[in-house]
């Protein structure tokens, strides 16, 4: 069972005193700058410093009239900020027997009934005394509690995923608190710290960040997912040592350039320490260039500084020779060992690279029919080849989202095994506010997995918007796979969206 509550409250208030301050701000700013210049000239400072001050003051005051004009324009109309709160609750009930289990040990079937709660709070556009819509606040987290009687030391688990405030001053942005450094050199890193974003003008931007690494729950205590008392089955108790945040920090910077929406590039560096030792030190570069809406090419590369070697490089081009056809060509080279943490012993082992070349096409054949195909050829070290390819079709017979039918086929050939997969999906609006989905998967493996050659998954949902912001979803799935002769699950979700109610 799950419930979702989200809401937006918009606050409009007329602050006549603040508007009147804004109206005269232009005159106040100019007079203030004149006073500062007068005082600065009276001080004994070096010629170089004085020239630097005048350059800064000219730069600053030249931006002020534009800013005052913008403030004067924005002063027309009420102040407003938005508050949005979300709560989603999921209740699961299922049984699980962990296979294969240590040799000779009885496999125990556990009953699990975890309840998950996801919460989020966001406030947009709070005003500062001298700045409108300058402050945003974001908070989000999740918690899980196991309701069923299981042999586990701690049933309660959770994480604060974000908790930050963001200050926006046009050319300067500050964010403080728990936040993300994502993509490029950083990977996906959560930290408690500060990030600064500067718009340097002429398309240049600089972002920097630094802070303490947030240890993921799984890494806070290795063996996180263990059920029951399995300590005696481990070779080492390393997995029960809690990882300390001391000495785990990260820092990085990114310089990017944009010329319109079609040209750009960036250079980034990310350094991360874990327990006082190097975890990652990576330099990344990106570039993209487009020619109208016809062609756009991009590439990115990541260089592992510690190993002094290229870890990952890829280029791709998107072409649209006609409005109904999108084509993509991609090439990739990876050194898998360099993607591991520098604390990993296996990260310094000798490995071969991995290359992949392929492409994708999307053709909107008819107004209600979209065809998609892809094919990638991989070359592993030692000359072994692999591939992954797929075909799919999405059909909207009525031209709207009332009915959607999707069929897909994919083929993956990897080292030592591969599979064929079929997917069929259907979504139909049954009544005004009732929508149903039906989805099926079929896998056929080249080599049997645990003695089984196939997997079959069937899932369906019924979703209804009940009005006044309420919604209900009932879902279920049945699976037969190498790891479960029969796996049946159900899901009930109740949602409430305050955004739909005007206030």
């Amino acid at each position, binding site marked *: 069972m799950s419930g979702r509550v989200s809401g937006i409250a918009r606050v409009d208030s007329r602050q006549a005193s603040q508007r009147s301050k804004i109206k005269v701000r232009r005159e106040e700013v100019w007079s203030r700058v004149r006073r500062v210049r007068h005082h600065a000239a009276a001080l004994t400072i070096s010629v170089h410093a004085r020239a630097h001050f005048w350059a800064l003051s000219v730069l600053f005051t030249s931006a002020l009239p534009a800013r005052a004009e913008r403030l004067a324009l924005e002063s027309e109309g009420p102040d407003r900020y938005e508050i949005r709160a979300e709560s989603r609750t999921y209740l699961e009930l299922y049984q699980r027997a*962990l296979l294969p289990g*240590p040799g000779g040990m009885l496999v125990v079937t556990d009953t699990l009934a975890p309840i998950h709660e996801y919460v989020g709070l966001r406030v947009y556009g709070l005003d500062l005394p001298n700045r409108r819509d300058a402050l945003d606040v974001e908070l989000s987290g999740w918690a899980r509690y196991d309701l069923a009687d299981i042999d586990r030391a701690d049933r309660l688990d959770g994480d604060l995923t974000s908790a930050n405030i963001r200050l926006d001053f046009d050319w300067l942005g500050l964010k403080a608190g728990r936040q993300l450094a994502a993509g490029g050199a950083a990977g996906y890193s959560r930290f408690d710290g500060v990030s600064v974003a500067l718009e340097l003008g002429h398309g240049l931007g600089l972002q920097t960040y630094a802070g303490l690494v947030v240890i993921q729950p799984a890494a806070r205590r290795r063996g996180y997912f263990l*059920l029951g008392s399995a300590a005696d089955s481990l*070779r080492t108790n390393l997995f029960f040592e809690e990882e300390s945040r001391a000495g785990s920090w990260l820092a990085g910077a990114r310089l990017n350039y944009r010329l319109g929406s079609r040209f750009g590039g960036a250079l980034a560096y990310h350094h991360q320490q874990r327990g006082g030792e190097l975890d990652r030190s990576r330099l990344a570069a990106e570039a993209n260039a487009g020619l109208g809406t016809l062609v756009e090419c991009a590439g990115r590369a990541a260089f592992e500084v510690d*190993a002094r070697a290229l870890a990952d490089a890829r280029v791709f081009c998107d072409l649209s020779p006609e409005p109904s056809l999108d084509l993509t060509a991609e090439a990739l080279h990876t050194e898998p060992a360099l993607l591991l943490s520098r604390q990993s012993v296996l990260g310094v082992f000798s*490995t071969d690279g991995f290359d992949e070349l392929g492409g994708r096409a*999307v053709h909107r054949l008819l107004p209600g029919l979209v065809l998609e195909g892809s094919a990638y050829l991989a070359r592993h070290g030692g000359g072994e080849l*692999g591939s992954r390819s797929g075909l799919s079709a999405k059909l909207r017979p009525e031209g709207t989202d009332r009915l959607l039918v999707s069929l897909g086929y994919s083929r993956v050939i990897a080292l030592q095994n591969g599979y064929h997969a079929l997917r069929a999906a259907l979504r139909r609006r049954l009544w005004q506010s009732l929508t149903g989905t039906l989805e099926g*998967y079929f896998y056929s493996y080249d080599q049997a997995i645990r003695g089984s050659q196939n997997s079959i998954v069937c899932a369906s949902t019924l979703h209804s918007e009940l009005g006044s912001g309420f919604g209900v979803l009932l879902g279920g799935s049945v699976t037969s796979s190498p790891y479960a002769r029969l796996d049946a699950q159900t899901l009930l979700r109740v949602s409430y969206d305050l955004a739909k109610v005007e206030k």
Partner: protein
Amino acid sequence: MSVGERFVPVLGLAFGALLACIEEPPVRFPHAVHLADQQCQTKGPEACLSCGSCHQSSSSNTREMSLPKPELCSSCHKDSGVAISSQKSAQTQFDFSSTIRFSHQRHLAMPELLGQCVPCHAGVAYATGGASPFPPMEKCFECHEHKSQWDSGRCAPCHDRKDIERVLPVTFLQHDSAFLRKHGALARSQEKVCAQCHTQSDCDDCHDLTQRLRVERRLPEELERNFVHRGDPLASHSIEARAGSASCMRCHDTASCDDCHLERGVSANRRLAESPHPPGWMGSFAGGSNFHGNAARRDIVSCAACHDQGPATNCIECHKPGAYGGNPHPGGWQSARAQDDAMCRYCHEP
């Protein structure tokens, strides 16, 4: 006949039947006939029409300006008024006006426009189908104020946040089929714009592996979103990881892999764990195509998913200096770290 062999023909027949049901798109209202092809300015009942003849607004309600009332059509088309109004309603699928905070009256009063509709709605008169008649957002940037708002990533002056979160971008940051590949780079360079609709929680939905309930289970009705772990990931993930471990490493690290393998008894840190390795993998009779060294060179990440426990990594036992496993480093290998680094000391005892 296997399930798959039965599955495919039935699906194919059903799909073919559905293809026959594809409806033609609604016909665009013939603006050219009404605006340019009229025999007006001569004696007779027909008067010259302009945009304002049908698109009238007595308030700042944009919806009224976009959709003329059916009674206006009946004033000329006296015999077929009902049919015309039903045609008009078919075009409402292109109505984005309710998602924009916009005042026609205020804009028409501006000296730059002088009451003219064509500067923004150019091409509407002769459009016969396809794209929406509403001007693209790029048209709004011809005005300095809106351009500066866009540059500073502020959508809220024109768009209600709760509305834009429901509408996919069309002319900028287009969420098309290639967007999944490009969205990371765009989010890094245009974070302010993305933040108008998305929060960190939205990124976490797909990328945060600490969330115990994966997104495919939280949003089972989202059939069109390209979630990575659809279907039966438990059985297929080992094949997909070997097909391209780089994509796995964008979200996962080997610690998260080993935690699950530990739970299920296949990790190297589990006593009496079931070994997935074939004969000849290692030991006295190791060699040939099944030798672990070949597999490790090809796919070290898969090894690390079970054999990456820091100083307890069992590879150290054979590959430390003096042991019979030999030097594991690649030729020309170098590191900026000294041998007394903690990780180096696992093998290189001082």
